């Protein structure tokens, strides 16, 4: 488009261009039709999805991988309800995303018109904010506000609902006079995210840390949102304090670093869980004391004082009372902590050598482990994950679905770089991985992108592999087929007396290889250990198409360690082969 827009539809597309949008994910329909016309002439690449949920998760994957807001656009009614799940997902994982939905014409709103639903009403609770635009003249400003809200403060999804008549050039109501989105003041009198932490509180925090003998840096997804991995490394090394990275923060601190304890929580490793449990100080950086991390709250880290840093003031004290609570951007606050710590000098720090040797003792005694398969057994999922890790460079982007395969991925991959791990942590959305991987690959075409998926997950969103083929966004899928909704099976085995209710999918359908091939991908089935590495190598050689490797894995394999629901983190159940070590040491402290 070279001439200035004269109607709402053109203005919307131009405004997206002005916000720097390069790729968007969507699927057209009646109410949004007028906006799809100017898309033809736009510089924005539009990726046509097969289901609107896919568009939403692709936008999320794109945002996770690039740090830029993901954009999706869908029509009204059923399309809008189809994006509710990704919006909720983005809300819980603080993913910057802008979603445009078509709406019936203004005069038809509220009349139960064809494909009408109350989109702003339905999405109110799953968006950071949403807008119903009623005047085409507002479009550039509102689009600018939407991107501003989505990307600043605690990031999140913003939805803009646009009635058809104000974007349809044949309707006089769509007429507008163009202006640059950022040329007018935003009208957000209630939105002033605060990023600088209070210096007095940062000082107080630095002093509290200096006195701590058993501190742990408890690092959450906020570190990645704040792009604070570098200052975090500096802080940890300066203080020589061990770091745990939550499911949302894997990669924010390198797994290979000697101070890294890995993932805490329900399926965290013994050392990460126990170090938090025995700590005298938890420094929470962009984490939110999620129940999957704390276990039973009244028994969580009983002796720990808490420093809680978060950009969202509503997180401070939400779950656990803090001793020092700092509202601010993690990067700014960590840099402040580094400065003050340097000024305090190394002599100011408490002696933590005993703590470090206790922690490394746990690491030696309780490494992640699993039993290797016997000849004739099905594949062990942990073995496959290790092979996948070893067959790929460290900057590979790994996306995951939700279930046992997700936990095995988080446990057995080696995350050494930020923004290499993309998963659905807060909402736990099955079907996330394939569309998220496509979104990540669209944003990072030069990077290798693997999706780790379960057979249950795969059957929810696999059709987006058609999108990947048609749009030439090739990804690789490691499908862990254990024929079960494995994670639910595990709970039924452990907590419901092995009474398996509705968790067996099927041992013979679908045929994943044929299915993959029918979608234009290469399909490979792997059933024995010696085939695993070659299949991964083969997949990595194919770059013009997507590849799906179906690993036929052992359904009896469970995820350990595990903190049973309702138990405290002191009652972590380790791998059966290590359980006797735990009994030996009993209440070791």
């Amino acid at each position, binding site marked *: 488009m070279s001439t200035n827009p004269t109607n709402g539809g053109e203005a919307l597309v131009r405004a997206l261009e002005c916000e720097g949008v390069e790729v968007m994910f969507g699927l057209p329909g009646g109410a949004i039709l007028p906006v799809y016309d100017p898309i033809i002439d736009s510089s924005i690449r539009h990726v046509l999805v097969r289901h609107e949920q896919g568009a939403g998760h692709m936008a999320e994957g794109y945002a996770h991988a690039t740090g830029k807001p993901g954009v999706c656009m869908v029509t009204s009614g059923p399309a809008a309800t189809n994006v509710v799940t990704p919006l909720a997902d983005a809300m819980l994982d603080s993913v910057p995303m802008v979603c445009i939905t078509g709406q019936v014409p203004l005069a038809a709103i509220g009349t139960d018109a064809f494909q009408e639903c109350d989109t702003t*009403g339905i999405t109110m609770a799953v968006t*950071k904010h949403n807008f119903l635009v009623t005047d085409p003249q507002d479009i550039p400003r509102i689009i600018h506000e939407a991107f501003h809200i989505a990307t600043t403060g605690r990031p999140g999804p913003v939805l803009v609902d646009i009635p058809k008549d104000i974007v349809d050039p044949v309707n006089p109501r769509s007429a507008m006079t163009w202006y640059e989105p950022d040329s007018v003041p935003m009208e957000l*009198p209630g939105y002033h995210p605060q990023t600088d932490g209070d210096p007095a509180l940062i000082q107080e925090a630095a002093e509290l840390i200096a006195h701590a003998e058993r501190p742990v840096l408890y690092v959450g997804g906020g570190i990645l949102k704040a792009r604070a991995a570098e200052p975090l490394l500096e802080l940890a090394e300066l203080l020589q304090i061990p770091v745990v990275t939550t499911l949302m923060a894997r990669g924010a601190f390198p797994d290979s670093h000697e101070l890294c304890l890995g993932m805490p929580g329900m399926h965290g490793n013994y050392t990460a869980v126990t170090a938090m449990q025995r700590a005298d100080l938890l420094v929470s950086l962009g984490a939110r004391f999620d129940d999957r991390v704390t276990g039973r709250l009244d028994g969580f880290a009983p002796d720990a004082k808490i420093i809680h840093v978060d950009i969202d*003031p509503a997180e401070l004290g939400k779950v656990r009372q803090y001793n020092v609570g700092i509202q601010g951007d993690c990067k700014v606050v960590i840099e402040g902590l580094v400065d003050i710590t340097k000024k305090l000098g190394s002599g100011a720090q408490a002696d933590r050598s005993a703590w470090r040797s206790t922690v490394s003792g746990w690491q030696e005694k309780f490494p992640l482990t699993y039993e290797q398969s016997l000849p004739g057994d099905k594949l062990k999922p942990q073995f496959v994950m290790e092979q996948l890790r070893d067959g790929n460079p460290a900057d590979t982007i790994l996306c995951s679905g939700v279930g046992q395969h997700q936990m095995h991925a988080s446990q057995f991959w080696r995350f050494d770089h930020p923004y290499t791990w993309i998963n659905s942590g807060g909402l736990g959305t099955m079907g996330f991985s394939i569309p998220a991987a496509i979104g990540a690959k669209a944003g990072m075409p030069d990077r290798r992108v693997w999706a780790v998926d379960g057979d249950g997950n795969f059957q929810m969103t696999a059709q987006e592999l058609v999108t990947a083929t048609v749009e030439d966004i090739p990804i690789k899928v490691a499908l862990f087929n254990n024929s079960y909704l494995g994670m639910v099976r595990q709970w039924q085995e452990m907590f419901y007396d092995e009474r398996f209710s509705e968790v067996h999918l099927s041992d013979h359908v679908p045929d994943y290889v044929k299915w993959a091939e029918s979608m234009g991908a290469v399909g490979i089935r792997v059933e024995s250990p010696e085939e695993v590495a070659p299949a991964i190598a083969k997949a990595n050689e194919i770059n013009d198409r997507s590849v799906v490797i179906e690993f036929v894995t052992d359904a009896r394999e469970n995820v350990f360690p595990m903190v049973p629901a309702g138990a405290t983190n002191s009652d972590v159940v380790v791998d059966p082969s290590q359980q006797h070590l735990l009994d030996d040491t009993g209440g070791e402290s």
Partner: protein
Amino acid sequence: MNVSSASPRWHTLVATVENKPGVLARVAGLFSRRGFNIHSLAVAPTDDERFSRITFTVDIEGTPLDQVVKQLDKLINVVDISELNPAHSVERELMLITVEVGEYRKELMEIVDDYRAYVLSEGDDRLMLSWSARPARLDELEERLRPFGIVELQRTGRVALPSLDN
């Protein structure tokens, strides 16, 4: 049954919000998602038409109250929110009440005079009164009128401002 409005369980929150469609639904949504009830609610534009002031009372305390206040503050359309300290604020509420007169007109009029309520409308055997006062005083008047027979009653919900002697 007769929980007094003066009961210390009630907390009064005052919010300045954008005067726009949907804002009240957003505010209310943060209570309903937790299964909390809003006991009383008053909303109207401020002297600046772009903003409305909401006064609401809720029977939540402690951590949930703090959380809900912080989450309300996070709403993009909420400009400002605070809890009013009852010791340092002034609260008023208006009540319209229609009562049966029956054979006790004299006794009824004594109460009306006593409270300096206004008679807004008069029927053959009914009276509509208007009175504004502290919410607890409205409760009191309501109780005194109850024996006559309350036909209809509407209270506005309390409005409040910080007092000037803080």
